[in-house]
């Protein structure tokens, strides 16, 4: 079962072309990301098994499931880290199944990982500049560092201000605490300005008092009306507060897909994921 969730306001554009410019006009009510019969086996075990899902412009969808359900592998298939054994991935109507990670990123797929994946030897602003220059592709100067160009530096600093890290721009990343690193990952995502954001447990490892700020950042990301946000999250209060739609994966298959209320009430979900009937 696939349940689409309307995005609300009209989107500005669908996916970027290879050089990062807009490609196509508004596509109200259309699917931005379309996954058909996606499957992959790792080490002889089927991890994702025939998943078909569609995501409309403007949707914020939580993907939940017990450990080993195939959530992160599903993200790996979307971002191009893994090639599927079968199935297709379409972004804005274009088949991107055969494309690698950089090509998918340039078309507007961005990702935040479950574990910090930043460049610890670089400074905070250098990390952001790396994301900014990737969008420029061949247009970026080979020689001049983006963080030394006034216009690019201003854009990088704007991203850092959004995540409240502007004061740490010159700090090396290895000197940052965990919470600040998670925020920096969001700043990289803001710099990429993707049309599809894959957030793999963005609040993982954060102190309780830091979580609301991260949720605000996710909400900010969602302000762009044409963007699709897919969120893997174990904290159900976070899922309930953000998601318009919840997909439950179990043993690599879609167990349930619908509004938070309908999914929470599903007997299958309670049996497999929540461990019993609701109180």
């Amino acid at each position, binding site marked *: 079962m696939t349940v689409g969730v309307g995005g609300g306001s009209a989107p500005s554009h669908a996916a970027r072309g290879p050089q990062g410019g807009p490609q196509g006009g508004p596509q109200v009510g259309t699917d931005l990301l379309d996954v058909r019969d996606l499957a992959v086996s790792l080490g002889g075990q089927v991890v994702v098994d025939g998943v078909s899902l569609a995501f409309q412009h403007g949707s914020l969808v939580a993907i939940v499931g017990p450990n080993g359900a195939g959530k992160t592998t599903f993200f790996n298939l979307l971002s191009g880290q893994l090639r599927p054994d079968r199935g297709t991935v379409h972004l804005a109507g274009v088949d991107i199944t055969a494309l690698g990670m950089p090509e998918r990123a340039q078309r507007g797929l961005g990702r935040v990982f479950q574990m910090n994946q930043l460049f610890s030897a*670089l400074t905070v602003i250098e990390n952001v500049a790396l994301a900014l220059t990737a969008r420029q592709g061949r247009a970026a100067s*080979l020689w001049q560092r983006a963080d030394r160009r006034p216009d690019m530096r201003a854009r990088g600093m704007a991203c850092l201000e959004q995540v409240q890290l502007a004061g740490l721009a010159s700090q090396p990343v290895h000197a940052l605490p965990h919470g600040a690193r998670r925020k920096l990952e969001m700043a990289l995502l803001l710099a990429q300005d993707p049309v599809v954001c894959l957030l793999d447990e963005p609040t993982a490892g954060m102190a309780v008092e830091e979580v609301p700020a991260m949720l605000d950042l996710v909400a900010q990301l969602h302000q762009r009306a044409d963007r699709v946000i897919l969120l893997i999250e174990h904290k159900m209060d976070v899922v309930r507060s953000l998601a318009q739609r919840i997909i439950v994966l179990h043993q690599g298959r879609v167990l349930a897909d619908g509004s938070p209320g309908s999914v929470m009430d599903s007997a299958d979900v309670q049996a497999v994921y929540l461990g019993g009937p609701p109180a």
Partner: protein
Amino acid sequence: MRTLLPGPHHRLLSLVLLAGLLSMGVKTWLVLTLSGLAMGSMLFLMASGMTLAFGLLRVLNLAHGALISLGAFAGATWWVVRAQALPDTVWGQWLALLPAMLLAMSVAGLVGAVFERLVIRPVYGNYLKQMLVTVGGAIILTQLLQGFWGASPIAVPRPDLLRGSLVLPQSVPWVGGLALEKFRLLTALFGLGVYALVIHALERTRWGVVIRAGVEDREMVEMLGHRMAPVFLAVFTLGAMLAGLGGMFWGLYQEVITAHMGDELLILVIVVIILGGLGSVRGCFYGALLAGLVNLYVGYLLPALASVAVVGLMMAVLMWRPRGLIPVADT
């Protein structure tokens, strides 16, 4: 933000220099230090490409030694053949030397680029296959050199402008009248210049930032949208060019070249990149200087231990800092 406090590499270099100074006379120390720095510069040229290739591509290219030999032969070919036809003046000798350097870099770089595309690229991520194919490549390249040039050592006379010494005035205290060999002085300065250029490129250009980020996490750089395949090719080619240049200088240093010279140097090159920290260009530079100095100091003080001194230094450093002098994440 880079700290201004001396790092472990500065402290170790100071310690080695001080130990040398306390163990011999000032004049001997100065001559050996200059020779050690010259040797270190050549080792840096030869090793920097290999450490970058390992850091970014995770490729342990055991054919790197053959690229060193190739550069030496390419440079020597020009030098030996064309130098005779040019006027025997300082300018004439520069006209012979500079194209020799360019030829060494071009030939090694071109072969390196083809090697990356045809041999290395299909085995990215598989260390065992990398070792097998790069050893195979090394054998083929060495045999081709031997087939073309023969198995006997070939004399490479150093040009006159690189012969002779710079004599310090007698008025200079302690070291007045000391003769410093021109070639070693120039080689040390040249190595320092190349190091400064490479560091500038790595730290002050967009490509450099991409390379440094890729050394740390290649997949994440691609996830941001940077295509790494052209970067890999460029880095591998640049590394091969530097290997060729280093080989040419080594040939002039020894004044003799053989097809197997690269194989013999490869052990020293591997020791230098492990000592400095795999993947770290800055570490490679300090590792090369330390290897050059220790080799010369120990060779003078305890000749019997000269051949194992650099390996001993590497073991001591790894016991102190298991990831090398300057691990990649600290650069």
